[in-house]
């Protein structure tokens, strides 16, 4: 079976499991929306302030809860499943890519719903022509965040404090994604060029892909 066939099969089953277990839809997403609600409630009737804060709060909540999407329980292979994959001849790199594919689908959906909730709750002052660049930035950030979370999940796989440790690893490494994502919207609002921020996001995603694929086998072996 080819690399891509294995990656797609891993992604297909991951999404099927997620559909049944609902880690993202039933747990992470509702909590993220509640977190979004907290700021307008705290700021009260100061609508201009709420509107101004909207994009920043969106990315802060998106990145924080996005980590929970990337590190969801259903993406943590138990030892028996890791052994099974090894003995079925699954390439660890294909497993990494498959997990990133399924995670990215979930992450894009999660951030998209969060974006809609932000627009409804904060009425942010979005510049003309915002959908295309914002969605491009959202998709690129989602991919990068998923790759980072998957990589951190692999490093900490099987550890008791996996979620906490992985989040600590991810937080500093997510900086280029946070900067790229937030500056895309900021630059758009100032009518400045957004290309360099999109390039930053693409470069970060590519670097994480290369790192994840290259490290998948050594990480797999180190766990044995």
């Amino acid at each position, binding site marked *: *079976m080819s690399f891509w066939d294995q990656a797609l099969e*891993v992604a297909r089953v991951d999404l099927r499991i997620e559909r049944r277990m609902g880690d993202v839809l039933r747990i992470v997403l509702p909590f993220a929306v509640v977190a979004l609600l907290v700021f307008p409630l705290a700021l009260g009737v100061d609508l201009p302030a709420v509107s101004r804060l909207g994009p920043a709060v969106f990315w802060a909540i998106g990145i924080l809860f996005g980590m929970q999407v990337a590190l969801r329980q259903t993406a943590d292979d138990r030892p*028996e499943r890791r052994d099974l994959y*090894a*003995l*079925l*001849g699954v390439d660890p790199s294909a497993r990494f890519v498959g997990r990133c594919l399924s995670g990215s689908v979930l992450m894009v959906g999660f951030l998209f719903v969060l974006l809609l909730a932000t627009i409804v709750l904060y009425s942010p002052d979005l510049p003309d022509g915002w959908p295309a660049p914002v969605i491009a930035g959202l998709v690129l950030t989602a991919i990068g965040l998923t790759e980072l979370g998957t990589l951190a999940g692999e490093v900490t796989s099987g550890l008791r404090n996996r979620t906490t440790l992985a989040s600590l690893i991810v937080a500093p490494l997510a900086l280029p994604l946070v900067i790229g994502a937030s500056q895309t919207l900021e630059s758009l609002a100032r009518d400045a060029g957004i290309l360099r921020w999109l390039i930053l996001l693409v470069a970060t995603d590519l670097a994480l892909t290369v790192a994840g694929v290259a490290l998948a086998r050594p990480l797999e072996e180190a766990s044995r």
Partner: protein
Amino acid sequence: MRLRPVGQHVVLEDVGVSLAGQVILRGLSLELPPGEVLGIAGPNGSGKTTLLRLLATLVRPDRGVGRVLGAALGTTEVYDVRRHIGLIGHIPAVIGELSLRENLEHAIRLAGGDPARIEGALRVVGLDEAAHRKVETSSHGMLRRTEVARLLMSEPRLLLLDEAYSGLDFYAQALIDTLIERATGSGGAVVMVSHDPRHIAERARRVLSLSAGRLEPVT
């Protein structure tokens, strides 16, 4: 150190394994030719499971040298042979959120096999009526049968059985026997470990004893 005979499915020479700083296996030397059923008996904690995981290439040796299906243990060569190794471990290797049939579909797709073989394998293990059941609502025996169905489809050249008969009824035990017969009949080799020497004595042509991490012939 020199590795001897070519053509053996397993060759170990003075192999040792430590886990978390504790020596589990020491000074293991073993040869396993094609077609042989080797039984290894030993009390709880003697290192039987670690030995099987070593042979499955899932644990690295920290001393000595060994080859499994021609691949040197502890090297990347093992990636080329893992798909030819079948392991039935203590805990059934199934994905809890899927049904029994979905587990088989997933496994055969990942291994590049033909999904059309699933129905036949399910019939052989007597799960054709219950294949839709989720893992979490299935009994231990049903999960074992699912594993047997998977291994019937993958036809491993090295079959490793870790207390595979535990908790199984007569019919399910007979399925494990079928698996052994098919493996040896097609030139494969089998290693079975158990703390119950009766299971081994009935099936293995050669029996070794594992005690405190050392292999010894049974007299």
